[in-house]
């Protein structure tokens, strides 16, 4: 019966400190998952017909039209 007292103390301490943990209590909002219709990528149809590399090149070239340092020099 000598072990009963330490066991009782250990149990009491464990139960007593159980509420002392600092767990986040803020609700974790998860990003909503899309419920609508699927969309196709912009390079899927004509004129690129699935050629992503060509579309990337076209858009990158087009973007450089906004850079007047490249247009004038």
């Amino acid at each position, binding site marked *: 019966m000598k072990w009963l007292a330490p066991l009782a103390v250990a149990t009491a301490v464990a139960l007593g400190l159980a509420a002392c943990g600092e767990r986040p209590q803020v609700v974790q909002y998860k990003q909503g*998952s899309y419920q*609508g219709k699927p969309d196709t990528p*912009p390079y*899927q149809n004509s004129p690129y017909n699935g050629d992503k590399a060509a579309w990337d090149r076209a*858009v990158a070239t087009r973007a450089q039209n906004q850079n007047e*340092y490249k247009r004038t020099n």
Partner: protein
Amino acid sequence: MARMKFLCDAERCIECNGCVTACKQENDVPWGVNRRRVVTLNDGQPGQRAISVACMHCSDAPCMAVCPVDCFYHTEEGVVLHDKDLCIGCGYCFYACPFGAPQFPQQGAFGVRGKMDKCTFCAGGPEPDGSEAEFRKYGRNRLSEGKLPACAEMCSTKALLGGDGDVIADIYRTRVTMRAARGTKSGPPWGWDTAYAPTQSAAGTSPGPVPAPAPAPASGGKS
């Protein structure tokens, strides 16, 4: 992978509203809906600035997080789009958006809110690319034609840049560096000290090396 973004250079914007007009014309946007607008800050005071604002296509979009029917989605290119067939017009996205991008057409005599409408980065929506249905609901799909948004492409001073974030950041960086090299601009870009702490070091090596002039007092803007 491209991540499409807008960037407005406040040093160049002359408040011509050409971007607003281009957007309305290109997408046949209904009366009362402004997908893009030009905001004037410190109107009439020295240091007045104008910036063109629309949906910023946030990487972690608040509208997407609050939508009760989950009608928003991110495209591969980082464009935030939504399905109008699913939208219930509740307006949560309008409250959540820090830029006031979501717009609601006023239908009927009592201003009943219609389905949300916003900038699509000229990327259409979840309908077949280039279809009549897509144009009617979302406007032109210029991205599928290898073009960039009409507002940015027709900006006369090239204040508004649109495209892959890396590319337009490079364009802007070149521009700011050239300004500093010419000595035509004594301070860092407008808003630099708001976003970053003013630095005194590394003069001439980065866009933000030169101490900024004293900031003008903030005041309300007009749109």
